[in-house]
């Protein structure tokens, strides 16, 4: 990464953790809940969320849920278990192979074609979401999101799947900042050092699927989004135009994943248009 941009992305770690733990505490209490529940994949994003949640509320008010599928890398579950042990988190292992396979057995037959890896991956992400929200109702625990700013901007996530949550403590942290903060809060080295993967199919890695590294994405996104530079200005600075345009298009095309569904305006006061209140209405 360009050293100047790397420097600008450096967080004050203690201050950031102070903000994010205060955020988790206040949001959970305002919503009238006392606990949180989150998926723990063995990857760095959910690991960071686990450490932040445990610092914010104490481990006993957290529930970490590991939801492996048949093809998930066994190392993922091991890494997730290491986080659970390190923090002393209450946890559950809920394999999703049964419901996901049952669904596709029926649907593949109805449609007459086997589902693509994308559809299977989306279904897994939504099965996990569905499980977390069920446990949310059972335990009176808010669902914490684990999508970082890089993923949210690139739209690299499943709508109503891993992108769904009640609150997301890491949604304004670029991937490189997630790494920095994860080192600071003590995420195990094995997790810090492995290549990021959605682990939706074997040997999947985010960076090979995206076609660029997260460092590159962060460098470009920081300039486009935070500094408001135009793609033309970035191209003039020597970035490969094809890759650059690919990133710009992803950010634009995936805006729908970052917004609630569109409502057709009919009345003089429409939800989301001119019926405007914060979620913190009355809290």
């Amino acid at each position, binding site marked *: 990464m360009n050293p100047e941009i790397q420097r600008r992305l450096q967080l004050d770690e203690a201050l950031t953790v102070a903000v994010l733990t205060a955020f988790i505490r206040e949001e959970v209490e305002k919503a009238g809940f006392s606990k949180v529940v989150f998926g723990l994949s063995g990857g760095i994003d959910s690991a960071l969320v686990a450490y932040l949640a445990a610092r914010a509320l104490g481990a006993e008010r957290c529930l970490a849920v590991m939801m492996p599928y048949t093809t998930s890398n066994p190392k993922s579950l091991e890494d997730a278990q290491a986080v659970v042990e390190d923090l002393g988190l209450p946890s559950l292992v809920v394999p999703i192979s049964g419901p996901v396979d049952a669904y596709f057995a029926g649907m593949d037959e109805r449609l007459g074609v086997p589902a693509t890896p994308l559809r299977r991956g989306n279904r897994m992400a939504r099965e996990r979401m569905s499980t977390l929200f069920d446990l949310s109702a059972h335990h009176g625990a808010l669902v914490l999101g684990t999508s970082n700013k890089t993923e949210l901007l690139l739209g690299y996530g499943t709508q109503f799947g891993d992108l769904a949550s009640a609150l997301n403590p890491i949604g304004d942290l670029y991937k490189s900042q997630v790494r920095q903060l994860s080192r600071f809060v003590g995420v195990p080295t094995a997790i810090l050092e492995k290549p990021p993967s959605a682990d939706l199919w074997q040997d999947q890695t985010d960076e090979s699927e995206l076609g660029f590294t997260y460092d590159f994405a962060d460098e470009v996104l920081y300039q486009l989004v935070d500094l408001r530079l135009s793609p033309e200005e970035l191209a003039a600075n020597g970035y490969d135009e094809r890759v650059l345009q690919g990133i710009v298009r992803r950010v634009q095309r995936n805006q729908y994943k970052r917004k609630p569904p*569109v409502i057709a305006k*009919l009345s003089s006061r*429409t939800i989301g248009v001119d019926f405007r209140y914060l979620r913190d209405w009355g809290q």
Partner: protein
Amino acid sequence: MAQSLRVALGQVRPVLGDVAANVDKHVTIMNEAKQQGASLVVFPELGLTGYQLQDLTLDVACTLDSPALQPLLSASRDLALDVVFSFVEESRDHRFYIASAYVTRGSVQHVHRKVYLPTYGMFDEGRYFAAGQQFATVDTAYGTMGMLICEDAWHPSSPYLLAHSGARVLLLPSNSPARSVTDQGEFGSQKFWRQLLQVYAQLFGVYIVFVNRVGFEDGVNFFGGSGIVSPDGAWVVQAPSLEESLVCGDLHLANVRRARYTTPLLRDEKKDLVLRMLSRIVRREGGEL
């Protein structure tokens, strides 16, 4: 000076944030308008950009010499057609205005910067845009015209000032959303506009050319219903609601003459009194009186 002209209303659905695509669409419609015998074609507010721009404002802003606008200016010159188009105008000191330009044969005669920026209810213009500071008329081959943009017309002083500055035709590009479907036959917002324009046309003895866009932006729907109101308050022509269309109507300036003779409200207006009273009101509000 020509006493009659055919005006085309380019009721388009702009593509949000894609100036090149919208310029193309404008040029296509200008060609059609010319074939239908129009001398002037008017497009909706922000027809070159779309309305709810939010942070796209920075990306779509143009100056009058921006290359992006040149195909439109060339078309005006090549077709010998006057055109009113609307865009985000960036000033030299980087303020951003909702603007409409009056172009004659490729040459920009006047730019109106929207004065009243609605920032209430569903509207957020004041967050992104600077406000224009004047209502000025433009002298055209078809007489003196006045330019307003949408919310400008919801302040009666705007058409008042333009009519008293000599305008006989008011050009009014708009982006009015369809709101309230509980009235029969038209949207609540559309009914308000219809009544407002009929009253203005008669009070000020002017033609009003109202051009409103169509299409949805994140669920917000613009009703279209563009039209021309004559100085007697009658609709010369009206475009359909909710669909893109190009309709033409003829303006006969003799009707302005007759209306102002029959009902000489402009002649009888006591501008001195208004000025005196307004001056007193402003001083009182400023704590001077």
